[in-house]
């Protein structure tokens, strides 16, 4: 009986989340996704076209190109962000003067609107009079300006900017995770003569385990989905070098008007591409999930 009551209680506690998720999360996705078998412009009639949209998806070179870009972008962002934010969190978890100020500084990029910062980054990175090049030239580190937003470097630049905006975010999550590790564990270990690295490797990491695991998962999802600051800074350019898959989807739903015509929204094809991107993100996340579970077991 107690068991039944607990199950009832569980459902009751789950209800608000479930209701909101289904009504405002799942249903709208279903609404949009069903158009992947249709040709629909957002007005007028939706025409059933079977698998046409998926055939087009298969042929759609620029989309697959954007998928490849997404992996470069997400990979680069994660490689920079996760270790850096973890180290910062561990360091800033110790007591020393100025740590509150440092935490606040690292966190600040998270709160300022990314579209506004894109304007500033343009001033810093542009190739004709960008501040960054000016400094590098002055310091004698380079002899000719680097086209940071040119076809060769634009991806690197967007990754750097993405990492800039994300480090504080994950640092805070790790910091909060570290609060769950009792201090006395460290004390006894330092009495045992463990050095910093050993403490980090054999105490901090394992105890941070569940948090680390999920935070990395969220970071992967976020990195694969990120497109907003790219949209403002380069809009996927130059020549598609920073086009990522969610930006590609966005443009199908909200096409950029030109001076002479406003293209129709492509609900049908957009939904098909949206579905494909969701599957890609889902597969990657699932892969990560299984991998981290196996690693856990090995430990």
């Amino acid at each position, binding site marked *: 009986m107690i068991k039944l009551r607990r199950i009832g209680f569980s459902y009751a506690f789950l209800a608000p989340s479930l209701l909101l998720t289904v009504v405002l999360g799942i249903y709208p996705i279903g609404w949009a996704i069903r158009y992947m078998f249709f040709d629909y412009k957002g007005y007028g009639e939706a025409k059933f076209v079977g698998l046409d949209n998926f055939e087009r998806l298969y042929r759609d070179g620029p989309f697959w190109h954007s998928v490849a870009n997404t992996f470069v972008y997400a990979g680069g962002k994660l490689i920079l962000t996760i270790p850096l934010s973890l180290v910062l969190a561990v360091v800033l978890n110790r007591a020393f003067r100025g740590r509150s100020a440092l935490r606040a500084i690292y966190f600040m990029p998270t709160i300022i609107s990314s579209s506004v910062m894109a304007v500033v980054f343009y001033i810093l990175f542009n190739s004709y*009079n960008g501040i960054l090049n000016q400094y590098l030239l002055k310091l004698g580190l380079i002899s000719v300006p680097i086209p940071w937003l040119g076809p060769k470097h634009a991806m690197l630049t967007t990754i750097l900017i993405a990492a800039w905006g994300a480090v504080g975010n994950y640092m805070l999550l790790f910091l909060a995770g570290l609060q769950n590790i009792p201090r006395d564990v460290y004390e006894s270990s330092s009495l045992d003569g463990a050095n910093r690295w050993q403490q980090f490797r054999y105490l901090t990491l394992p105890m941070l385990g569940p948090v680390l695991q999920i935070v990395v998962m969220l970071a992967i999802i976020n990195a694969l989905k990120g497109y907003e600051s790219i949209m403002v800074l*380069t809009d996927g350019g130059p020549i598609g070098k920073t086009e990522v898959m969610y930006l590609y989807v966005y443009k199908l739903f909200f096409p950029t008007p030109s001076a*002479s*015509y*406003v293209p129709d929204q492509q609900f049908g094809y957009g939904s098909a591409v949206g579905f494909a991107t969701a599957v890609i993100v889902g597969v990657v996340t699932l892969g990560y999930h299984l991998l981290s579970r196996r690693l856990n077991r090995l430990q």
Partner: protein
Amino acid sequence: MIKQVGTAALVGALTVAVAACGSGGGNGGGSAASPTGSSEAASSAPASAKPAGKIKLSYWTGDRHDQDYIKEIVQKFNDTNPDGIEVEMVVKTDDFNQAIDLAFSSGQAPDLIRVKENTIQPWAKKGYLEPIDSYLTDEFKRKFPAIPDFNVIDGKTYSLPNYGSTIRLVYNKDLFKKAGIAELPKTLAEMVEDAKKLTAAGKADGAYGFAQNFKSTQSALFRSARVIAEASGYGGLGYDFKTARYDWNGYKEIIQAFKQMVDDGSTMPGMESLDIDPLRAQFAEGKIGMYLSFSSEPGVYKDQFPAKIDWAAAPAPTIDGTVKGKTSLLGGQWLAISAQSKNKDAAWKFMQYMYGDDILKTYQEKGFGLSMVPEIAKIAGKPNIVGIDGFLPTENDGTWPLEPTSAIKVEGELATDVFFKYMLSGGDLDAMIQDLNKRYNDALDKAIAAGEAKAEPDPGFDPMKIR
């Protein structure tokens, strides 16, 4: 111990915050606005205590450059009209088109909408706009030219013209003088040559011969290559009206010339990520020799980026120096009445007021736009604004018919992206154009088959004879 920790301080703090929000205003279902005491907001508060018999209309526009003036005349209308009509003007920006779509899909549409050359067609198709034929007096019909596709669609009139935009070569007179160039470029070859000379003369000061805003390839090429193609007798957006097919071959020599300028080092570095505003700012600083753009430039240099140089505008060059077509005069529409408006008669009264001679005349004279209404153009003075002279419409400006690009779904890369790629990294341009033609025409055929686009050959089409 546990109890001492109690409820999380944060949750507590936030509850207080919400309580504060709630006590501020209606926390029930309907409105979430909190009547805080901000005076400037209160003055524009709608719906509060309107006298009986007032007809409230809303007018949405995406125009900012003229908003102070339009606000002023709307206010005057509200104060003086005898019918108790009150117009609220809402300036939407970036997301104007999106806002319109959502407003119509939810029954929140405004009564009056500013339509543009690229929106009147789709919005009329979607049924957002009300034909105004029944309101038009003979006087109106005589005065305001009907422009098929741009204010008359399928025989119904939806809007009337006010102003139009022309496209010109904008050039830095000082730099041209310094480079010893006496004549403006008339051909592509001269343009390439001049860009080289300008760069040679200006490079020491960080100035370059030519620039385009390639952050958006469409925005860049549809104000540059487009106008050169048109002046050379080709459709500016790749569509051939004679055959009713896409043929991007008209762009070929232009893009080759653009590539030549890149290869020569005559173009502004970082052009690939340049947006139009930084481009204008660099031009105002004297760092750019020439570029191609719309007639909104003089306003920007007057109000926003004061030009530190002597500059002017002139007709764009052509491929071989002979003018074989008129260049785009964009416009032909201004206000339209919403099909969902409950007060269409009142809306028309407002429209009538807005299309009054004085307002249109002042509009041009203040430099907000170049009048497309012959009668107004005759009586209105020249806009009092530096650099506008070169932009004034001439014999060689006209409105091209609407090409079907908005109705087709092109698969793969857009033409402008392909061309820019070629400019940066080369390749087989002929093959690229062939592929573009195929993809665009396939999309066109599909759209025709689906009844979404019309494309009828017009063998007698003469790009010099458009109006």
